[in-house]
């Protein structure tokens, strides 16, 4: 604490330093006068009294300075002086300042922008209590991949484990809120301990109670702060009120704090979860079975337990369960994924790659600026020499020069921060795929500190070379009138080195951008297996008691499709439980007759589409063999199923699948006969190989989906039909909510957005780097040529051919470009493997990309050399000889 009080006293002195100086001066004067008085009284003359007093006192100025230094603020005063001096100098050369500040603003601003994204998404802690103790607990498939958990399994895990403080479940839930215009919300069904597991408390009302977590209890919900504000006008008395959803009533138990952002959203279009209800399962329910893998478990580790210990215990529990229920698990063991990794893991690779790429831009900007400063330092030799001769120490000169550069860099950072402020909006407009927490990206304290540090580092790094040069200059040489700047060999070598590194850095960025571009163009040529153009999609889900009757439910969708098909401008229409690339996947066990494993859980599984007739036609999915599903396939006729090529190949290799029989989702289900084989569809992503897929008639499936998407193949632009389609469906049932009213090709665009985002940014960075390098190469060549003007004149006057002189001038630049290219290719080969996970059908060392990039870069660079050299050739030899 003593040092703190001492610091406070020092600060007080700094703030009142004028007062302190005056005080010191006064008390010293008093001392001298009193002493003088004493001498006078002892009989000295006035003059000798004053001299004697002075002698006894010592050197007043030095002592004053010594006292001043005692306060410990000397460095600060020097700094303030240096900064003031620097700003004055920068104002005196506005051209240089403008170029330097803009270069730095580009480099530092881009870094601040990307860092703000990395900070907002990855570095900020998750909005949960002690988030690093949270983990997702998965069941394990026989191939080691993670799988969702069934409710019965969860109950056993929960009862038997000792390593988790809490173990909770959640599942996706899209209720339709009937307040005003019906709206489908993003929601979750969760066990009553879900928020306790995450460590979140409602801001208003209460958490879920354990006794509410069963099928017969009252339905209770918790609202997000945003939903509460948006739909209920932030009603302070909302708790205990009843709200209408899915034609039922729910009681509001609580409202979460605004600071809580849910990251468990599974909607590919983004948006946050806004409502939670209790799961309310009971083991007797058919969907609570062990093989009903549709729930996600989150656990909070007990204090002192690590992930490995928890894994060991859960593996043991899982192995025992497998022994007890051998036909209900495909493998023993669990997979633990720390929640941070689960939620942010997929974003971290592309973001760190972007951060790396943008730091290259800053390095190129630094190299350019260093070049600029070196050129300027030649002109400043005299100024520095004069100051040295007048007594400034080498250290003071170096500090002053560094302060100048830092002031420049901070100025650049300040300018760069202006565009960086709009990063989130630019990214939102660009579309970022599934980057979470983008709305939390902003210029906070951490970003500002990062930016300031980057700026200071930049200032010091770029200033180092000129500082070293100028603090070691030969005073006598520099002070001579009329000497040209002694641009020695060391300076030239350094400038060459800077150009080489610029070329290498730009080349690496260009290669990265090139590889991503080739990947995206490859990806976009992948046929998705359907025709996405001219198709409108809209989701709806039927509500209410009335639709618990399967016949009425099926009839509603059949009627709706019929009326949609009759709309003018509609070629064909259908409804389906899933849309390819729509982010919603439903997998069912595929049990082929005669090929069922002893443990049916080990059977293959397939993505299931529950469709109305006409779905294949509406999406133009190819029917390869057999027949399509038709209206006459009803609940009263034998069950039928369509399978895709992959399923046919995998299950019946070399056999004819038509007429074969399959059970879907369990051996207790009815047999379905394969009536046709259709082409593969990319359901999960264009870059993922299609898996087994099956299509079953909505009119036959015993549990017909109530949440379906309509697909309309249109003649004109699909969105033009959106309101007509809504009207048609509302004419059947006016309470229908609509969601995801969008053209099918928008889903395709969404599915590649993450790649496009990375490509666009790295492309922009590569372009900036290329431009900066070109400016750098141009600058160095032009400078070199200018210095050799007299030599050129002499050579020309002596009869040298213009071509030979041009070659001479170009040679140096070409050497630098060649060295930079070689270095850049080496660096690219070393670095592009980090891009591997973002590439598609392109190897990280793709020769074509490398070759194209080298040609483009070398071409542009040579042009940048050639222009100044060419201009020098046009100068009249006589003028050149009189130069200077």
């Amino acid at each position, binding site marked *: 604490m*003593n040092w703190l*009080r*001492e610091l406070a*006293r*020092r600060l007080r*002195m700094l703030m009142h330093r004028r007062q302190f100086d005056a*005080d*010191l001066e*006064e*008390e*010293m004067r*008093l*001392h001298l006068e*009193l*002493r003088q008085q004493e001498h006078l009284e002892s009989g000295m003359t006035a003059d000798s009294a004053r001299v004697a007093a002075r002698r*006894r*006192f*010592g*050197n*007043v100025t030095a*002592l*004053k300075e*010594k*006292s001043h*230094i*005692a*306060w*410990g603020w000397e460095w600060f005063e020097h700094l303030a002086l240096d900064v003031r001096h620097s700003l004055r100098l920068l104002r005196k050369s506005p051209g240089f300042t403008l170029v330097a500040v803009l270069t730095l603003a580009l480099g530092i601003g881009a870094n601040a922008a990307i860092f703000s994204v990395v900070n907002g998404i990855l570095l900020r802690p998750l909005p949960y209590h002690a988030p690093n103790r949270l983990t997702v607990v998965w069941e394990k498939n026989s191939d080691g991949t993670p799988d969702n958990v069934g409710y019965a399994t969860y109950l056993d895990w929960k009862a038997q484990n000792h390593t988790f403080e809490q173990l909770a479940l959640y599942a996706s839930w899209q209720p339709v809120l009937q307040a005003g215009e019906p709206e489908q919300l993003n929601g979750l069904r969760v066990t009553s301990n879900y928020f306790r597991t995450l460590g979140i408390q409602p801001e208003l009302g209460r958490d879920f109670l354990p006794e509410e977590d069963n099928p017969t209890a009252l339905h209770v919900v918790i609202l997000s702060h945003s939903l509460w504000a948006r739909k209920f006008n932030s009603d302070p008395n909302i708790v205990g009120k009843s709200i209408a959803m899915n034609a039922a009533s729910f009681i509001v138990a609580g409202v979460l704090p605004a600071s809580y952002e849910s990251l468990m959203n599974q909607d590919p279009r983004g948006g946050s979860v806004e409502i939670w209800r209790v799961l309310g399962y009971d083991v007797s329910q058919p969907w609570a079975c062990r093989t009903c893998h549709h729930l996600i478990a989150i656990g909070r580790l007990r204090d002192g337990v690590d992930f490995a210990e928890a894994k060991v215990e859960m593996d043991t529990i899982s192995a025992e369960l497998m022994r007890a229920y051998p036909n209900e698990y495909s493998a023993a063991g669990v997979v633990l994924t720390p929640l941070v990794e689960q939620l942010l893991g997929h974003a971290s690779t592309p973001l760190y790659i972007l951060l790396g790429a943008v730091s290259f831009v800053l390095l190129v900007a630094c190299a350019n600026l260093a070049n600029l400063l070196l050129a300027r330092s030649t002109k400043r030799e005299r100024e520095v020499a004069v100051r040295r001769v007048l007594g400034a120490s080498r250290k003071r000169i170096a500090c002053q020069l560094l302060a100048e550069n830092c002031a420049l860099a901070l100025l650049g950072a300040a300018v760069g921060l202006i565009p960086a402020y709009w990063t989130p909006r630019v990214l939102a407009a660009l579309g970022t795929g599934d980057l979470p927490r983008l709305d939390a990206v902003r210029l906070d304290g951490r970003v500002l500190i990062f930016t300031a540090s980057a700026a200071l580092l930049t200032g010091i790094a770029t200033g180092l070379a000129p500082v070293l040069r100028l603090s070691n200059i030969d005073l006598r040489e520099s002070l001579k009138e009329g000497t040209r700047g002694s641009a020695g060999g060391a300076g030239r070598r350094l400038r060459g080195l800077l150009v080489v590194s610029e070329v290498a850095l730009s080349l690496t960025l260009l290669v990265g951008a090139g590889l991503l571009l080739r990947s995206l163009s490859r990806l976009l040529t992948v046929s998705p297996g359907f025709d996405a153009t001219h198709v409108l999609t809209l989701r709806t889900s039927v509500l209410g008691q009335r639709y618990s009757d399967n016949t009425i439910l099926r009839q509603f969708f059949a009627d709706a499709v019929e009326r949609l098909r009759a709309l003018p401008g509609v070629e064909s229409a259908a409804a389906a439980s899933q849309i390819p690339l729509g982010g919603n996947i439903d997998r069912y066990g595929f049990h082929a007759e005669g090929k069922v494993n002893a443990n049916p859980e080990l059977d293959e599984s397939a993505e299931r589409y529950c469709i109305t007739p006409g779905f294949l036609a509406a999406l133009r999915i190819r029917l390869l063999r057999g027949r399509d599903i038709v209206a006459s396939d009803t609940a009263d006729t034998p069950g039928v199923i369509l399978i895709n090529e992959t399923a046919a190949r995998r299950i019946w290799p070399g056999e004819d699948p038509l007429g074969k029989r399959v059970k879907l989702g369990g051996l207790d289900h009815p047999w379905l006969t394969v009536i046709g084989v259709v082409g593969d569809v990319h359901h999960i992503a264009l870059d993922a190989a299609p898996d087994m897929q099956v299509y079953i008639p909505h009119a036959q499936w015993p549990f017909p989906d109530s949440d379906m998407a309509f697909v309309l193949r249109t003649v004109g632009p699909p969105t033009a039909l959106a309101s007509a389609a809504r009207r048609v469906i509302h004419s059947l049932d006016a309470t229908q909510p609509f969601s995801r009213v969008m053209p099918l090709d928008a889903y395709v665009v969404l599915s590649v957005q993450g790649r496009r985002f990375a490509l666009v940014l790295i492309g922009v960075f590569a372009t900036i780097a290329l431009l900066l390098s070109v400016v750098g190469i141009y600058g160095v060549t032009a400078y070199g040529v200018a210095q050799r003007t007299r030599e050129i004149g002499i050579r020309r006057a002596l009869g040298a051919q213009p071509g030979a002189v041009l070659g001479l001038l170009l040679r140096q630049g070409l050497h630098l470009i060649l060295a930079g290219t070689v270095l850049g290719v080496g660096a690219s080969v070393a670095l592009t493997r980090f891009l591997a996970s973002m590439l598609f059908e392109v190897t990280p060392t793709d020769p074509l990309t490398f070759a194209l990039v080298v040609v483009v870069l070398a071409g542009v660079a040579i042009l940048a050399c050639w222009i100044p050299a060419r201009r020098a050739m046009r100068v009249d030899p006589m003028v050149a000889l009189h130069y200077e």
Partner: protein
Amino acid sequence: MHQDEIPPGTLYLLILKTLARSGEMHGYEIANSIQRISDDVLQVEEGSLYPALQRMLIKGWVTAKWGTTAGNRRARYYQLTAAGREQLAVEMSQFERVIGAITRVIEAV
């Protein structure tokens, strides 16, 4: 009369002790006091009192406030703080240790 420079490092001790003995003093008085009590043997380069006093102010050993002298002049009076008193004890024991050691060395036969 011969006058000696004060031994290095003892200026703080002298100032602290002087202030401890007489309460409030301004710089001139401190200089005079040291000289008088040492029977004019110790003579400080008087000006060097002031940087020392500044450092002691920062350390919190003394406080200063402006007052008026007998001759009705404005002067800055220094006063010992509790921390200054502690420091005096520290400096004293250090000084005695050093002097003791030196004495032993020169008296050893």
